[in-house]
């Protein structure tokens, strides 16, 4: 049962072959079997999971109307607030924090009758590309336990890949949904900036952060996205557009279809096996009738530099709230307010978070703000203009999600710049605010999953999902399971 999609689990409940409780128990068993090795979950309250599942079954028995995710377990990244449950952000500074309210996406999952299935590990404050920056544990890639799952939403991606849950939510500030989806062999999507509410999402880079769904196929991603999208009066940066029934159209192929291919996305440092898999995917689209067109994104070579100034500047400001006053860690001994701030923050934050706060504070400091922060914002406009021009000529842009398959635990942790470059193909989408999706497109010779990234113009999620689904339907990659799951069955 644990290998089924959310759509299939819904049908099993409608036909009476399973109920929410039996589904919840099956996934709780899977967590018990595998999470000791995978370490995807930070908090999972079994009683609370079963209480929700039984309530859904009672609603069904009473013939009450049920939401589109009825009885489907959904794990959420530990950066989203669930009332009364821990939300640590992978940080010691929020070790004892329990939010007094639900994030809007969490409230929407409840309205859709989903079963909230615990919270997942992440790089501290979503800063990282491997989930090694968590203050609590290092999540492993279910395909090879010596490798990272990607990050920062590595727990949410690994949990879905290991069939510990059918659906999960992550957040994507520079690729933190798409890159771990690629490294774990599942589907992950970053919606258009403003498509999904950020209310109750603990902020990292406010002009970049976006909540996104993970699933084992594109149809399930469409179902989860439609349940969480839409305007939220509590988030003034959510776009003024209602959600769209993506799952109703996802099976319709897009015809005619023009796919843009940018030479900048096949740059130095791209692993040859990744390149071959992505080029083969282009051939699949050709065989489906797509027109392939060269497009150019000349400023994409500046994307990583731009991102690490914009994101860290926003982070240095956002993380000023951890001051030992309102919530979070306060040092035991201090002399005066300033000392209390410095000690509490020095003790509570990990290395990468300190590094980014420092870089952001430097980029915003008097004397450097024009050369760094403002310069980066100007280049950000040029990056967005590149996409506007490219999408005048094509429906989607296709390329690799990550330049390499999953790397080994510890391989890049001593070199922050090498780690930053693993986001080279994903971060432009956050700077420009456009939607992107990663879909499995093959395996390396060592058996690690490879991912294909598709990007579209703002609010073109419907088109993006249909194009992704065309590829998925023409290939069989989504049916493979990591060894630890296959051994189970």
């Amino acid at each position, binding site marked *: 049962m644990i290998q089924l999609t959310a759509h299939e689990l819904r049908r099993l409940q409608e036909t009476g072959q399973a109920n929410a409780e039996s589904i919840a128990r099956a996934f709780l068993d899977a967590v018990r079997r595998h999470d000791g090795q995978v370490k995807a979950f930070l908090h999972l309250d079994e009683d609370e999971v079963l209480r929700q599942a039984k309530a859904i079954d009672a609603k069904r028995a009473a013939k009450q109307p049920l939401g589109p995710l009825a009885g489907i377990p959904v794990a959420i990244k530990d950066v989203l607030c669930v009332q009364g449950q821990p939300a640590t952000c992978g940080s010691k500074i929020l070790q004892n*924090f*329990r939010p*007094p*309210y639900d994030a809007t996406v969490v409230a929407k999952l409840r309205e859709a009758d989903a079963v909230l299935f615990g919270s997942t590990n992440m790089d501290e404050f979503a800063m990282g590309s491997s989930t090694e920056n968590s203050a609590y544990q290092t999540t492993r890639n279910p395909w090879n336990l010596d490798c990272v799952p990607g990050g920062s939403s590595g727990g949410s991606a690994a949990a879905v890949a290991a069939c510990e849950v059918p659906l999960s939510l992550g957040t994507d500030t520079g690729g933190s949904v798409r890159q771990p989806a690629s490294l774990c062999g599942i589907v992950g999507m970053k919606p258009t*900036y403003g498509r999904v509410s950020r209310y109750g999402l603990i902020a990292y880079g406010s*002009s970049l952060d976006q909540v996104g769904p993970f699933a084992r196929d594109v149809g399930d991603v469409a179902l989860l996205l439609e349940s969480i999208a839409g305007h939220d*009066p509590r988030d003034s*940066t959510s776009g003024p557009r209602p959600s769209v029934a993506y799952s109703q159209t996802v099976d319709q192929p897009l015809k005619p279809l023009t796919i843009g291919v940018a030479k900048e996305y096949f740059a130095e440092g791209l692993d040859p096996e990744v390149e071959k898999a992505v080029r083969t995917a282009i051939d699949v689209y050709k065989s489906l009738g797509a027109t392939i067109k060269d497009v150019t994104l000349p*400023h994409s070579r*500046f994307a*990583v*530099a*731009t991102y*690490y*100034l914009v994101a860290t500047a926003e982070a*240095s400001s956002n993380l000023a709230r951890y*001051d030992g*006053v*309102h*919530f*979070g*860690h*306060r040092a035991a001994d*201090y*002399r*005066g*307010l*300033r000392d*209390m*701030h*410095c*000690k509490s*923050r*020095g*003790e509570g*934050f990990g*290395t990468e978070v*300190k*590094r980014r*706060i*420092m*870089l952001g504070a*430097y980029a*915003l*400091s008097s004397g450097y703000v024009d050369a760094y922060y*403002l*310069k*980066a914002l*100007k*280049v*950000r*406009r*040029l990056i*967005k203009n590149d996409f506007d021009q490219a999408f005048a000529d094509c429906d989607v842009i296709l390329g690799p999600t990550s330049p390499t398959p999953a790397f080994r635990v510890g391989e890049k942790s001593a070199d*922050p*710049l090498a780690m930053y470059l693993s986001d080279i193909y994903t971060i432009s989408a956050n*700077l*420009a*605010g456009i939607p992107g999706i990663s879909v499995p497109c093959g395996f390396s010779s060592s058996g690690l999953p490879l991912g294909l990234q598709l990007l579209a113009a*703002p609010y073109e999620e419907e088109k993006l999902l249909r194009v992704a689904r065309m590829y998925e339907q023409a290939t069989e990659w989504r049916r493979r399971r990591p060894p630890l799951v296959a051994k189970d069955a």
Partner: protein
Amino acid sequence: MAITPNEVRWIARELARLDLSDAEVEDLARDLTKIVGYVDQLQEAKTDGVEPLAHPLELSNVFRPDNPQPSLPVDQALANAPLRKGDFYAVPGVFE
């Protein structure tokens, strides 16, 4: 351009309010020098006459009707406070 340990200490104390160990100061001076060296490539981008883009939506002044809504009860709002005094957050003296 190298970022010195003294600059790191100044940023940490005056701007970021972070207590750092000597080892952390040394590591950050080395890492930040390397990262700033990398981001310096932005100076190659021609940006004359380009407006900065701070936000992808470019919204300004989003208004809604000013209708009072129920707010969190004091006990819930203060439940996460590290130190509480009555109905207030307790902090050390501001003036040293």
